[in-house]
């Protein structure tokens, strides 16, 4: 059932892909703003630099939490690409983020503290929709295993359009882009300094960045599942989706946490639940 080789590929390739995607993102964003923008490989330079810097700490335990964050992001992604149980993947993913939040809490700093609280709000905003997505995929394919979902002969998207839209909301939150960059921002502009990452510096911040790359690749993989029946279409959709995210990022300003939570839950309810409800109702006709 498990495809260890895929997991290993993920371990090696995900940072490369994640970094490249981030580089393309920055380039496109710059072009949208009428700028030249940084080199394509800029994210790699940034992380490379962070690892060359001195490690300063507020509390030594930060190091433990951030290492755990990176490790469990990698574990959840590897598990996903190995074809493991989608729910377990999601739980490991949540666990990883709890470690990030704990790392921020541990430093006893006002900015990272508020960032941590906001990160938690983001987690509860997107978590229901992720679980509903997994359940939706199970409804169509009768399996929670990514491997089985990948092997499905039917286009999941035609059964789960609402869930797909709901998942785009998750992606918008998780990419740390406007309008939902509450806890920390992908960008240079700051609201609460740098939120959760305020007290992480040098190599530790580098690890957070790498974890973010892994995470993005995992999320893109999740979107891929909706179109897994045709890889070409899937990759095209990934490109379009990411481009739309960049457009959203560049056209919206940051919203409050209330609006984030409300809109995320309403979309999870309206799109996700309604979609699943209809599927449930029609479940007699869903091919297995």
């Amino acid at each position: 059932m498990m495809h260890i080789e895929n997991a290993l590929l993920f371990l090696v390739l995900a940072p490369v892909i994640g970094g490249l995607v981030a580089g393309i993102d920055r380039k496109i964003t710059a072009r949208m703003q009428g700028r030249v923008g940084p080199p394509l490989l800029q994210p790699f330079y940034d992380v490379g630099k962070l690892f060359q810097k001195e490690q300063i700490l507020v509390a030594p335990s930060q190091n433990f939490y951030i290492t755990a964050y990176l490790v469990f992001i990698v574990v959840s992604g590897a598990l996903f690409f190995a074809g493991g149980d989608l729910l377990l993947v999601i739980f490991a993913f949540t666990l990883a983020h709890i470690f990030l939040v704990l790392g921020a809490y541990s430093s006893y700093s006002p900015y990272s503290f508020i960032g941590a609280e906001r990160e938690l709000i983001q987690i509860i905003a997107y978590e229901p929709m992720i679980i509903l997505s997994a359940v939706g995929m199970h409804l169509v394919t009768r399996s929670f295993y990514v491997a089985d979902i990948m092997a499905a002969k039917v286009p999941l998207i035609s059964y789960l359009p609402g869930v797909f839209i709901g998942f785009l909301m998750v992606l918008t939150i998780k990419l740390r882009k406007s309008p939902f960059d509450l806890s920390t921002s992908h960008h240079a502009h700051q609201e609460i300094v740098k939120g959760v990452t305020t007290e992480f510096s040098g190599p530790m911040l580098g690890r957070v960045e790498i974890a973010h790359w892994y995470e993005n690749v995992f999320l893109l993989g999740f979107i891929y599942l909706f179109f897994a029946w045709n890889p070409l279409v899937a990759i095209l959709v990934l490109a379009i989706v990411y481009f739309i995210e960049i457009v959203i990022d560049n056209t919206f300003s940051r919203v409050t946490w209330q609006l984030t939570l409300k809109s995320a839950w309403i979309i999870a309810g309206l799109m996700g639940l309604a979609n699943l409800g209809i599927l449930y109702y029609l479940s007699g006709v869903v091919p297995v």
Partner: protein
Amino acid sequence: MITLPFLVVFPALAAALLLLISRDSWRRLVVWAGAAVTGIASLSLLFITPESGPLFYPVGYEVLSEGMFVAELAIAVFLIYLGIKYRKYLAIFLILFQAALLVFFETGRGSVLHHITPNLFIDQFSLIMALIIGIIGSLICVYSLGYMATYHERHPNVPDRRRSFFFLVFIFLSAMFGLVFSDYLPWIFFFWEITTLCSFLLIGYSKTDESIKNAFLALNMNILGGIAFAGALLYIIAVNPGGELLHLHSLIQSSHAIALVPAVLIGFAGITKSALMPFSGWLVGAMVAPTPVSALLHSSTMVKAGVYIIVRFAPVLTGTMEGLIIGLVGGVTFLLASAIAISQSNAKKVLAYSTIANLGLIVACAGVGTYKLIWAAILLIIFHAIAKSLLFLCVGTVEHRIGSRDIEDMTGLIVRMPRISVMMFIGIAGMFLAPFGMLISKWAAIEAFSDAQFGLAFIAILAFGGSLTVLFWSKWMGKIISMCPVAERVENNISTEKWMVLSILTALTVLVCLIFPIISAHLIEPFVLAVYGQTTRLSQDNITIMAMMLFLLMIMPFSLLLYRNDKRIVPAYMGGRPTTADLTFQGSMGIQQHVGLCNYYFEEVFGEQKLFMAGSALCFGLILLVGTLTAGVAL
């Protein structure tokens, strides 16, 4: 087989002895011995439990049933006396009503029932419950020794009634054993009433106005459940004058048509006992009692009696509208209690609402009642009992050291009480994080609901409620581990007894996660198989991965040891202001300013009052609905 009656009788004997002893050293000895014997005896049950199906143990003493009836009347008289003393007329009315039903039942069954031999029995589910009661309950008893001594030092105006305290605690254990081993419904009812009585007296232990008020609240609600239970007995007698169906197992195996009405009535009793909305008020109020009482009520006894009986009746409820609605009561409770917990800063209240939420989840599983869900429900019962007792005892210990049970006062607890904090951390992780216990069961529940009838409603509840749980647990965790470096260490003077109990519970929290496949294979799956004819488990792949995750989590803290300590430590960023480690800085005009960090509580979104009203109204409506449906069936 003698172990079964032994476990029921022995704690009661120990209790009687404790009532007589007033010397502290003797009491210590008896409690230790009583707890040790109870624990070992319940462990020994592992060897006598059959591989499949229940094993019956007839108890041919008719006089026992008569005695129980007399005892019930005596309890009623005692409660009425207390009701008059404290002028709680509603309680008196309810007690009288229940007693009348009982007398009616006893006279109604008359001589017909004399040929019925009450049974004790044991199967895997009873065994699991017995282990929870025997091990966790005993540990809490031992912990109480140290706690109550400190408690009375701290509360000099509370009269020292430790004799009756330990008496009640041991009687409680005895009653719980009786409840899970009895097959004869009137006996179950008797033990049920004993737990009501004990919890009532324990909640009112300090005899302050507040505790008396809350004790009567608990009494009223539980007697309401008791009335429903008595109603179930009467109904069985009415449709089955021979009384064979008074046996739990024959009732469950009888036809849906007969068993459904008693199942719903007893299910209602279970809902009151396990404090689902709209009856959640009593469990929240119960935290006025000394902390070991809360631990006892919340983890191993009392509320677990409620879910125990509902899980027992799950095969009757499954697939019925009534079962679905009872499940929904649980589901709504899970969702709203989790939300309310977010708005609470009192640690015990957070624990109380999380208990209510988890009981709701168990009832949701049992109400829908497919075999996969029962598997998940039993896992939930196990994991919840261990982690919750650990958390309550940790909070109790912390409260005695720092003089507060407010989460806001636990800032930087990791610096002040490192060992306790780590235990608390593990306990909280056990409540919501992968790969620990509660999450395994939640996961199993999601998988099971996605195959169940109307499962989508429950999946939605789990998805949203589950994320709320993440919020309130993590922000508590965050408070504990904040490194506020100037705090003073106050972990000395905690007795070895407490350390021992806390360490065992911590170890159990982790151990159970490691060996849960074994527990599942040898205890839960045979039970589910025996009842439903099919069973479920987590796949081998997933178990391996979970074990690996747990292993990772256990080795990762050692990275702290490898970490070189020559790193430069800088203070937190405070907008550039030079700040001390506890966040004091020189403000403008040269005034010393202090920064305090306080969690979000989202009062206006997750306010207790608002959500409790909504939940109560909703659950009350659902219960009315199920009542109407059942009345339709009954008539």
